[in-house]
């Protein structure tokens, strides 16, 4: 990921885009922040926020034409928030804070401003604040220009006078009753001053000799407000047709003109980086779905404006626009307490660290890669792709922490070893029109269902149904181990080619996705589509399943496979089930916590993901992925696998059954292979390891802790085998138990055990990754 890519990804997250109100405001008053402060009763902070953007706050809070209110998202459910009235209220109710602003040193450069209305005075104020020596030429006998067109009630003269005091403070010189073009010429101003800002309200007759457009108005550059004379800039109402005056636009022009003049005098680019000035469109999306309608808060005293209490009520109607669409539906994004724009930056920084702590490793490795964020993102940003790419880079850099993925990778290697891997054409045939690929996890969770399904497919389909037992490589793919994945998948491809490129029937949604992505030349079909076509096996149906609707939990890897969603529902309907659709289903389904190896990298997060998912309906869930079923059931949710309804649940269990533990999962795969070898293919079963004969007794309580610690029975057997054959073990003087350790690969396992009747009672087992230097222990 380079800087450019990072920038593009960051730009797609719109959470930091301004709210519609601030974007539409030509001077970008942060009405959202102001309303938040008022809602919290903090009028002083609110006033500070407001005044930061507006030079004459008293005036604007009374006469602003508030373009913000026209775009307020609150309008979807009630009236727009009364931003202008809130502005006034924060001035009314703020504590009076003394202006602590100080002026920069005088620049000894003179600027003339023609016109003492809002636009000219804004330019004068802004330029004086920058240290310029500013003189304002006003043709009337008082400042204010068209402000006096407002009624006294709306805009009392005292308010104007009070606001204009700000000009004195910054040392602006005022020349009243001087009409430029008559008493003094523009040419002489240009000689005496470094630059001129023209804001006369209406264009003087003759146009002061500046270039004109076709309609006779001054030619004014909309970005710089430059005229045909490089020293002269012009803005304010003179730029707008009469009758379309906008106080806030006049202020914005004054500020724009001041920026141009400052740049002109400094001799820097007038046009660079000016996109942020003036009213804008925002890309910020804010959902107003489910927002309860609320009308504008009434004022007890319409002339006086909001009371404190009324203002707080009105400010509370502001919905504090933000996007967070992805964060709202994704516990992973929510749990790191920020949003993708920040996450992308954190991940990028994490990848760039040469020395130091990589704080974002967990952020990178916790994502399920399910892609729900992209589905709900108005800009299609997919954090899953970002995290997957980051994992690949970490692996490539040799910076991937070993512990999050080691166990599932070893599980994958087991599945692709002779213990489980098996590829054969259908017994009694040599041609294979189809290839059944049940996947490693269904074989681990429900080996009997694999046997029954394979038998059913062989009976229903003509042309030969080959069988391939192994792992599709998803753990390598998910964990960013590109090379490992390619090697493993190359075996699949060559065996598939040897079988004559059959159509692949996939029982696991993840396998389906992997095959579709990495073997595009193969025809792939989900088992559910096949079973939808063949119809259910005899005897399939309700069985022990309660006569209630089933809530379908779609697998996240089928997100874009509508035909699979459809096939599953067709089968359910045909079996007589009523279907309940969860709020997040189909292309918006949620991951069960297994995807992307989330459970291994961040088990607490995975548990809360599962917890959220199972609370979405009281109905029994129906999953069609073995891991989804086992994970949802692990938290106590009654969850059926679709094959339970077709071929019966494993060992007479029901929706409540917990999936097998890690040891049993491997055992189930190995037994499945051996059973098929013997029964179907008439071959010799694969023998077990020498240590496999070591009998273990493990209590249920210890079993739970072994699962949590990811310790397999075979790990324990290897420790005991080593200890008993080498004699290298410790003995407790208290209990007489033995304690031994052994490091088969990366992890050192410790087992406390005793012997009884030729078996070993396991009292405890734990493990660590740090390595001990133990002299000649192993030499025995």
């Amino acid at each position, binding site marked *: 990921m380079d800087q450019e890519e990072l920038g593009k990804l960051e730009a797609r997250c719109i959470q930091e885009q301004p709210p519609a109100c601030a974007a539409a405001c030509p001077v970008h008053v942060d009405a959202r922040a102001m309303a938040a402060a008022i809602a919290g009763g903090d009028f002083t902070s609110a006033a500070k926020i407001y005044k930061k953007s507006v030079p004459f706050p008293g005036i604007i809070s009374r006469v602003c034409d508030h373009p913000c209110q026209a775009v307020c998202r609150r309008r979807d459910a009630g009236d727009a928030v009364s931003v202008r009235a809130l502005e006034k209220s924060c001035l009314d109710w703020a504590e009076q804070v003394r202006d602590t602003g100080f002026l920069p040193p005088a620049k000894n450069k003179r600027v003339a401003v023609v016109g003492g209305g809002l636009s000219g005075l804004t330019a004068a104020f802004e330029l004086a604040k920058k240290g310029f020596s500013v003189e304002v030429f006003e043709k009337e006998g008082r400042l204010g220009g068209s402000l006096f067109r407002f009624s006294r009630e709306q805009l009392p003269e005292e308010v104007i006078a009070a606001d204009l005091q700000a000009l004195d403070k910054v040392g602006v010189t005022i020349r009243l009753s001087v009409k430029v073009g008559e008493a003094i010429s523009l040419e002489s101003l240009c000689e005496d001053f470094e630059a001129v800002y023209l804001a006369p309200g209406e264009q003087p007759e003759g146009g002061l000799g500046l270039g004109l457009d076709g309609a006779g108005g001054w030619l004014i550059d909309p970005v710089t407000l430059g005229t045909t004379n490089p020293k002269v800039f012009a803005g304010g109402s003179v730029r707008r047709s009469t009758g379309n005056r906008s106080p806030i636009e006049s202020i914005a022009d004054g500020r724009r003109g001041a920026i141009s003049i400052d740049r002109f005098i400094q001799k820097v680019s007038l046009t660079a980086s000016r996109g942020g000035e003036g009213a804008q469109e925002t890309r910020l999306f804010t959902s107003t779905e489910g927002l309860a309608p609320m009308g504008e808060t009434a004022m007890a005293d319409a002339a006086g404006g909001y009371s404190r209490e009324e203002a707080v009520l009105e400010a509370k109607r502001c919905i504090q626009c933000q996007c967070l669409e992805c964060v709202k539906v994704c516990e992973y994004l929510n749990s790191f307490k920020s949003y993708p724009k920040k996450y992308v930056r954190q991940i990028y920084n994490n990848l760039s660290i040469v020395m130091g702590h990589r704080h974002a490793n967990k952020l990178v490795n916790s994502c399920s890669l399910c892609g729900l964020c992209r589905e709900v993102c108005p800009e299609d940003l997919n954090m899953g792709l970002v995290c997957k790419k980051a994992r690949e880079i970490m692996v490539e850099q040799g910076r991937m922490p070993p512990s999050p993925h080691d166990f599932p990778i070893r599980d994958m290697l087991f599945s692709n070893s002779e213990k489980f891997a098996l590829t054969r054409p259908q017994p009694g045939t040599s041609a294979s029109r189809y290839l059944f690929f049940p996947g490693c996890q269904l074989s681990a969770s429900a080996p009997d269902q694999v046997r029954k399904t394979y038998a059913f497919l062989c009976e229903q389909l003509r042309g030969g149904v080959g069988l391939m037992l192994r792992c599709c490589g998803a753990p390598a793919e998910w964990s960013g181990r590109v090379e490992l994945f390619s090697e493993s998948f190359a075996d699949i491809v060559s065996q598939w080619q040897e079988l004559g490129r059959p159509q692949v029937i996939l029982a696991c949604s993840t396998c389906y996705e992997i095959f579709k992505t990495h073997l595009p030349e193969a025809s792939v079909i989900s088992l559910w589509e096949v079973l939808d076509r063949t119809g259910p096996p005899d005897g399939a149906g309700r069985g022990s399943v309660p006569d209630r609707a089933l809530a379908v939990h779609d697998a996240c890897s089928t997100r874009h496979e509508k035909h699979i969603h459809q096939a599953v529902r067709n089968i359910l309907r045909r079996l007589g089930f009523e279907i309940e659709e969860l709020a997040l289903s189909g292309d918006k389904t949620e991951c069960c916590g297994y995807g992307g190896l989330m459970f291994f990298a961040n088990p607490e997060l995975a548990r809360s993901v599962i917890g959220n998912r199972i609370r979405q309906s009281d109905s029994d869930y129906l999953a069609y992925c073995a891991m989804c079923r086992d994970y949802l059931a692990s938290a106590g949710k009654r969850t059926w696998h679709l094959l339970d309804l077709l071929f019966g649940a494993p060992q007479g269990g029901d929706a409540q059954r917990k999936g097998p533990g890690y040891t049993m999962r491997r055992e189930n795969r190995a037994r499945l292979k051996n059973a098929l070898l013997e029964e179907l293919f008439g071959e010799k079963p694969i023998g077990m390891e020498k240590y496999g004969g070591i009998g273990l007794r493990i209590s249920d309580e210890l079993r739970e802790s072994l699962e949590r610690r990811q310790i397999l029975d075979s790990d324990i057997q290897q420790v005991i085998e080593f200890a008993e054959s080498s004699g290298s073990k*410790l003995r407790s003087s208290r209990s007489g138990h033995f304690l031994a350790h052994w490091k088969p690969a990366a992890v050192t396992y410790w087992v406390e055990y005793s012997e009884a009747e030729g078996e070993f009672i396991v009292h405890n087992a734990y493990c660590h990754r*740090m390595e001990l230097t133990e002299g000649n222990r192993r030499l025995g």
Partner: protein
Amino acid sequence: MRENNAAPAESEWLCAKCGLPLEVGKVDVGYLGSVFPVDLYRCTKCGQTFVPEELAEGKMAEVEKLLEDK
């Protein structure tokens, strides 16, 4: 890594092979290229070392995580 300074003076564990009680001594414990001398009970004859469950689950796990993120 600072470790079980609070380890009891005597361990309940004996080396079953050498028949000797374990004594506290420096053992090099390493991970991902970093090595720390740690005070652990071990057999003075064969070097067989004892890592208590609390150490494996506690400090060691913490240091592993720290080094993995370094």
